[in-house]
């Protein structure tokens, strides 16, 4: 028998050689657990992420914007599915994964616990929230677990229109009437800091990061990704004449990066703990949809059984 120590070494050697891990390969329990948690949280985020945007489908300002928003929300459902399938390859049933979301046991990205108050929020979500998600997802295209990496490649291909349509909404509003520009600025003010929180705790406070880097689940640290996002987004805000709501934001000639203020981690921890503005509403909406869809799932199974029987007869 090969002992676990040896299996561990073989596993790490594969990772170090940039070989992907596939579902049937031996992997340490902790690697499996870590990925089940991360990928399922990611899947739940895609699914819950449909709710704040769905809020504006019936009130989009034009048919064009409505069609775009519908397409984007439909993409998010697809992204949730790719990721749920990746979780399933690790031996957890789809039903279990979904139950963990519905019962509140599993987490999803805290950003979706903020409300979408105006149409400009749809712009800010695409530009900032999808923009931040893309930074993370581009990195995850090279993650060590094959099915996760493949899902990410597919998602990244589809996601770039999401960010561009959001930025376009903001650009159009910023060029519009003073009220429209103010609406865009207000959305930026409310979504900026929560978007920065999406990258997770600072490297100093991220206890699992080192192991995730060693296993090449992650390739860049939270702080690194956050800084790249800030550097890119500040320039984009300038182009459309909006102001980043951070008085400490300043270009640093030495580091060639922006220096910026401090994230309110108390707020972050509060929302993670379930006390954000929309936590209860989001879970209630998911549970309602799931429960009200139960008869459809049952009817489809009954119909499939009836058809199979008729075919056999």
């Amino acid at each position: 028998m090969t002992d676990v120590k040896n299996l561990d070494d073989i596993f790490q050697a594969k990772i170090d050689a940039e070989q992907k891990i596939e579902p049937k390969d031996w992997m340490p329990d902790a690697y499996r657990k870590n990925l089940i948690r991360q990928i399922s949280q990611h899947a739940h985020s895609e699914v819950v992420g449909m709710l704040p945007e769905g809020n504006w489908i019936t009130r989009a300002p034009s048919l064009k914007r409505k069609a775009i928003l519908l397409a984007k929300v439909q993409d998010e459902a697809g992204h949730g599915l790719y990721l749920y399938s990746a979780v399933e390859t690790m031996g957890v049933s789809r039903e279990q994964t979904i139950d963990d979301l519905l019962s509140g046991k599993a987490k999803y990205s805290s950003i979706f616990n903020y409300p979408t108050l105006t149409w400009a929020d749809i712009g800010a979500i695409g530009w900032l929230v999808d923009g931040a998600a893309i930074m993370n997802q581009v990195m995850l295209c090279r993650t060590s677990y094959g099915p996760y990496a493949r899902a990410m490649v597919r998602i990244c291909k589809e996601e770039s229109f999401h960010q561009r349509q959001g930025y376009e909404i903001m650009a159009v509003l910023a060029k519009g009437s003073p009220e429209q520009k103010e609406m865009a600025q207000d959305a930026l003010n409310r979504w900026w800091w929560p978007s920065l929180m999406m990258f997770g705790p600072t490297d100093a406070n991220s206890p699992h990061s080192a192991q995730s880097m060693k296993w090449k689940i992650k390739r860049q640290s939270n702080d690194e990704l956050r800084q790249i996002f800030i550097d890119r987004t500040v320039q984009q805000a300038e182009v459309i004449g909006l102001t980043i709501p951070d008085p400490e934001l300043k270009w640093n000639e030495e580091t060639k990066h922006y220096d910026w203020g401090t994230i309110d981690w108390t707020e972050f921890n509060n929302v993670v703990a379930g006390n954000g503005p929309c936590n209860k509403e989001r879970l209630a909406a998911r549970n309602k949809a799931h429960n009200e869809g139960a008869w459809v799932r049952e009817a489809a199974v009954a119909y499939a059984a009836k058809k199979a029987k008729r075919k056999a007869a």
Partner: protein
Amino acid sequence: MSENPNNWPLWEIFIQSKRGLEHKHVGSLHAADPQMAIENARDVYTRRQEGNSIWVVASQHVHASRPEDAESFYDPADDKAYRHPTFYTMPEGAKYI
């Protein structure tokens, strides 16, 4: 495996992106029957004209080689360089070969 009889089975999805090309595995999804699997695959995997033909295969019917056997299973091919055209020395000046 789930015990709930109302859970839909899992299907592996293969898409042909263009006539003349092979069907390629793109992912999996749950559906109650093959027709629903094809329709769901259309919605999930061909929203941007990625395909013009879909195959669905019940995942339970896929059998796979074992990764732990990979070394011995595939090593017979390792020492047979003569199966490749570059193994052979062609006389100087010969054309179209």
